[in-house]
Structure formats: C-alpha cells, structure tokens
C-alpha cells in the first residue's frame, strides 16, 4: 500500500509541474503581457509608448529572458512564498489569498459539517428500505435538488428567506463584521445541491450492498437486523461515498465561485472571478495554482481513502 501511495504522490507532483508550466505558458502570451502593461502603465501610457520604450520596459521587468529561465525563476519565487502583487487591489497576492482562503475554508467547513451526517444518514436509510415510501420520497427529493442549478436556488432562497421573511441578510458581504446569519444563505445554496448528489450516490451503493449474498446470509443466520446493517453492510456501502466526500472538496471549490459572487461573500471564488474580470494576472495565476493544488490533494486523499477502506484493492 505504501508503494501505491508513493507512486500516486509522484504522479501528482508531475501533474502539478505540468499544470504550472501550462499556466505559465498561457499567461506569458503577448496578449496577457499587454494586459499587464496596460494595468501598470495605464491605457493612455500604453497607447503613446513607442516600440523601443515598450521593449525597454519589458527588459526592465525581465520579460525578455528566455522562456525556461523565466519559468524557473517564477517557480522559485512561488516556492519561497512570493506570489506577486495584485494590480487591482494593490496588496500582495499571498495576503489576499490567505484572507479569501480563510473565508472560503470557514464556509466549506460548515458545508461539510452539515452535509456529511445528513446525506450519509438519508442515503443509508433510503438504501436500507429500497422501494418503500421513505425511499421514494428521499429519491425524488434528491433528484429534484440536483436538477435545480445553484443560481436558481440562490435567487429563490434570497427571495423567500431574506426578502420575504426577513430572517437573514440578503447579501453576505459582512461589512459590519462577522455574523453567522449572513452565512446561512450561501450555506443553504451549497448544501441543497451537494446533499442531493451525495444522497443519490449513497443510496445506490447501499442498495447494491443490501442485495448481495453475504447480507442475505447474515440475515438468514439470525443476526439482529441492526447488527447486520452496522457491522456488515455499512462498512462496504460507505466506501464509495467516503471517497466521493473527499472529491467534494474539488466540487465545492468550483461551486463556491458562483455562490460567493452572487452573495458577495469575500472568499476565494469571488477573488478569482474579480481577478478574471479585471485581468489581474498575478492573482489569477496564483489562485489557479492554489485551486489545482487543492483539487490534486483531494484526489490523492480520495484515492488513499479508497485503498485504506477497501481491502481488496490493498492486497492485490
């Protein structure tokens, strides 16, 4: 098993290297270089700049050196923690990243805190009594919630909860300091979709396990039903949902872009979106790298969890 993990880690490092090379190559194109120039010198300055002056400016910024040396220098800077300067907000990228990642991490923490018990319980209950009314209700609800896009749920929840009933503030910008109430709407929007998805997957795994031979043998042997479920069925049924939960980290990072932009929550998604709109290259580069890091890490954790939980994979 250790061999497998080491091989996966090496693969992940190779992927990270390739992704960083790709990102650097993308943001190194002439188009983005001009965007950086405009951001620093201003539109008027760029328009009146002669070719030789532009070339001099490029040399001063070190942008005329060969591709590989620039790439290595950039990589070195990142590994030392120097991620550049944001041209829009005029603060260091690492500071910006730290703040926004903290905010998103808080949101994600609460999402996972509520999502894991609720969806696993509902999925197991639905799978245990496959075909019963409870199962039908849970299945229908989960298919419905995964069919409504998060933008629609976000606006609907805002209208109903914030503006109709007035229980929670409509936007989560938190300009008056931290408040838990402002987290409710983004939380609910994320939760509705994620819980539905996870319940469907858990139910599918649970029904498959409940139909298998060893469960039937255990029941026929005379074991109490609860023991059959807790000791035999759950351990096999929950392998796939647990690995999916790790992969949800990747999914949350993607869903959080929409939710944060809509609710004006100062998190990672909104920072990425604003940087993309403004053309803030350093922030975009750093944010994408961090996102890829988290995604790759979540895939690694998920594979590791699968190997740990599934003995059949461990010993082949």
């Amino acid at each position, binding site marked *: 098993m250790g061999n497998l993990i080491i091989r996966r880690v090496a693969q992940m490092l190779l992927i990270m290297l390739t992704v960083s090379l790709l990102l650097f190559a993308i943001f190194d194109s002439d188009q983005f270089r001009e965007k950086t120039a405009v951001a620093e010198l201003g539109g008027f300055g760029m328009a009146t700049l002669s070719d030789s002056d532009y070339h001099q400016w490029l040399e001063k910024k070190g942008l005329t050196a060969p591709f590989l040396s620039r790439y290595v220098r950039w990589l070195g800077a990142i590994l030392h923690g120097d991620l550049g300067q944001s041209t829009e907000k005029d603060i260091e990228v690492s500071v910006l990243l730290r703040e926004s990642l903290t905010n998103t991490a808080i949101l994600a923490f609460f999402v996972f805190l509520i999502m894991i018990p609720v969806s696993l319980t509902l999925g197991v209950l639905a799978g245990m009594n496959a075909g019963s009314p409870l199962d039908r209700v849970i299945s229908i609800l989960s298919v419905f919630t995964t*069919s409504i896009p998060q933008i629609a749920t976000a606006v609907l929840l805002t209208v109903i909860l914030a503006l109709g009933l007035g229980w929670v503030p409509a936007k989560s910008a938190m300009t008056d300091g931290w408040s838990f109430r402002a987290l409710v709407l983004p939380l609910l929007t994320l939760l509705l979709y994620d819980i539905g998805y996870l319940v469907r997957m858990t139910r599918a795994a649970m029904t498959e396990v409940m139909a298998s031979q060893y469960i039937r043998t255990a029941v026929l042997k005379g074991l109490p039903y609860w023991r059959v479920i807790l000791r035999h069925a759950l351990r096999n049924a929950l392998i796939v949902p647990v690995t999916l939960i790790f992969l949800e980290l990747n999914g949350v990072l993607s869903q959080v872009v929409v939710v944060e932009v809509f609710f004006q929550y100062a998190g990672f998604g909104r920072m990425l979106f604003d940087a993309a709109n403004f053309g803030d290259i350093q922030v975009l580069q750093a944010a994408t790298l961090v996102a890829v890091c988290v995604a790759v890490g979540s895939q690694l954790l998920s594979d590791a969890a699968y190997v740990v939980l599934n003995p059949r994979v461990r010993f082949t």
Partner: protein
Amino acid sequence: MNYRVAMLLALVWLPLSAYVMFRPALGALGSYVLLPAIPSVIVLYVLALRSWRESWVAILGVTLVCFWLLMAVTAPYLPLLDPNKPLVPLVTPGGMGHGALFLLGSDMRGRDVLSRTLWGCQRVLVWGITATSVAYVVGAGGGLIGGYLGGWWDELVSFAGNVFLSFPVMVLFILVLNLLGQSGFNIIIAVTCSSAPVIMRIVRGLALDAKSRDYIQAAQTRGEHPLWIMLVELLPNVRGPIIVDACLRLGYTTVAITTLTFLGLGLQPPDPDWGLMIKESATAALLWKYSYMLIAPALSVSSLILGFNLIADGLREMSLRD
C-alpha cells in the same frame, strides 16, 4: 440506439444548430430550416414511449426533454411576441396579466416573459448538445485509444486527462473563457476540456473490460485494422453505460452554460437566455409581485435538467433489470 434513432436525432440537431449558430448566414432559408425538425421530434417521442414503456421515470424524463425540444424547433412558428422588442410604449414594464398580450407578464424592460422563456431554450439546447457531443467525440476517442491500444498510448492519454481533471470545473471555465473570449464556440472548447477527461476514463474502463472478449480476438485474428476494431467492434458494444452517462452529462452541461451566462461569461445579451433572465430578475424579484420573472426561467431550466436526469435514471434502471 439504432441507426433510425441516430438519424432522427441528427435531423433535429442539425437544423437547430444551423438556426442558432448561423442564422445571419442563412438569410431567407432561415425560416424554413427548422421544418424537418418538427416531425422528427414527434417521431422520436413516440419511439421513446414505445421502447421505454416499462419505466415511468424514463417516460417522464423523455416527456420533459421532448417538450423543450419541440418548443425549441417550433418557436419561430408560434404566435409569440418578439422576445427582444420591448413593448414599453404600450405597456408599463413589470406588468402582469394584460390579457392576451402578455400571458406570463413582462420583464423589467417590457419584453414578454413567455416568449423569452420559449425562445431561450434554443440556445441552451443547441450549445449544450453540441458541446457535449464534441466532448464525447474527444473523450471517447481518447478512451478507446488508451483502453484498446494500451501501453505508451494509455500512459499519454491518461496523463493528459489527469492534467485537465486537476482543475476545478468553474476555474477551468473562467480561465478558458477569459483566454479565448466569450462566444458559444469557446464554451464548446471549455466544456470539452472539463468533460472529456471523465468520459475518457469511463470509456477506457469499458474498453479495457471488453478487450478480452472473443469477438475482439476474432477480429484481431482476421487481421482487421485497430481503428476498425475500435469503431466497429468495440464502440457499439459499450454503448449502454455511455448513453446513460451522456444524459447525465447533458444535464451538467446545461447547468454549466446557464451558470456561465448568469455570471456574464457566456453567451451575450440581448438574445433570450435562461441564465440571463435569472440574472436580470434577481434584482427585480425583490418584490413578491415580480417574482414570476424569476420563476419562469428557473422552472424551465430545472425541468430540462430534471428530464435529462430522469432519462439517465430510467435507462439505468432498465439496464439493471435485464
């Protein structure tokens, strides 16, 4: 999935795509190009009803999807108001229930919500189906190559897929659309970048599984070209799970396109589009009186995605049963 169904689907998709993507170039032909699609949708629906009779889930799903397909192909021929022209001089914006004029009311700029909803499904369907098809061609091609040929090809294709899989989906979309500009064709590229690796993994698994079967080995003994084996022997026999996944993926792609338009990154106004309608109504729906502006597009997009999900679930149920 036989050739008759494939031909009918092409007969629906080709005119619709031509209409949405190339309407300025079509000129006078534009008003006739959708006519062959209308009976094709109806025939498709009848065929689906007959072959999927035993699963009410699949029937409900295909009803929803075919309803929106029908709306998309008949929208130019229905007696609807112009979705882009505000009737502001005649009617105050945001007014509801003006009898025969505005069945569902008008939005904040005075345009008819009903006609915008019915016209909006054209763009979502066309770009969604086209993007998913391209992603499938790329992903299935890569999966077949990696799964069947194995060895060095497999390593290369899997590595390329893993590189693209390591981006979160929305981050990839934002990156690609900012790099290449915002248009429907770039959405196709973005969707391919994000979906093709997953499809490639699925097809590769199926191909690896089917590689050891007898008919493959018989074809190899006969001396058939690997490309022929992949396309003619391998692909038709793994199509079951692929079709189920295709329906699910159409749902995800529809969500992605609607979300991108909502964020302002996708297709451009003022043409009617559900994501755009949701965005515009987000500020107007502050009052209960105007919340219908939000409910119409939200309900429409949810029913379309629900249709795709139900078809996928129904097909899976039917394949498990036999």
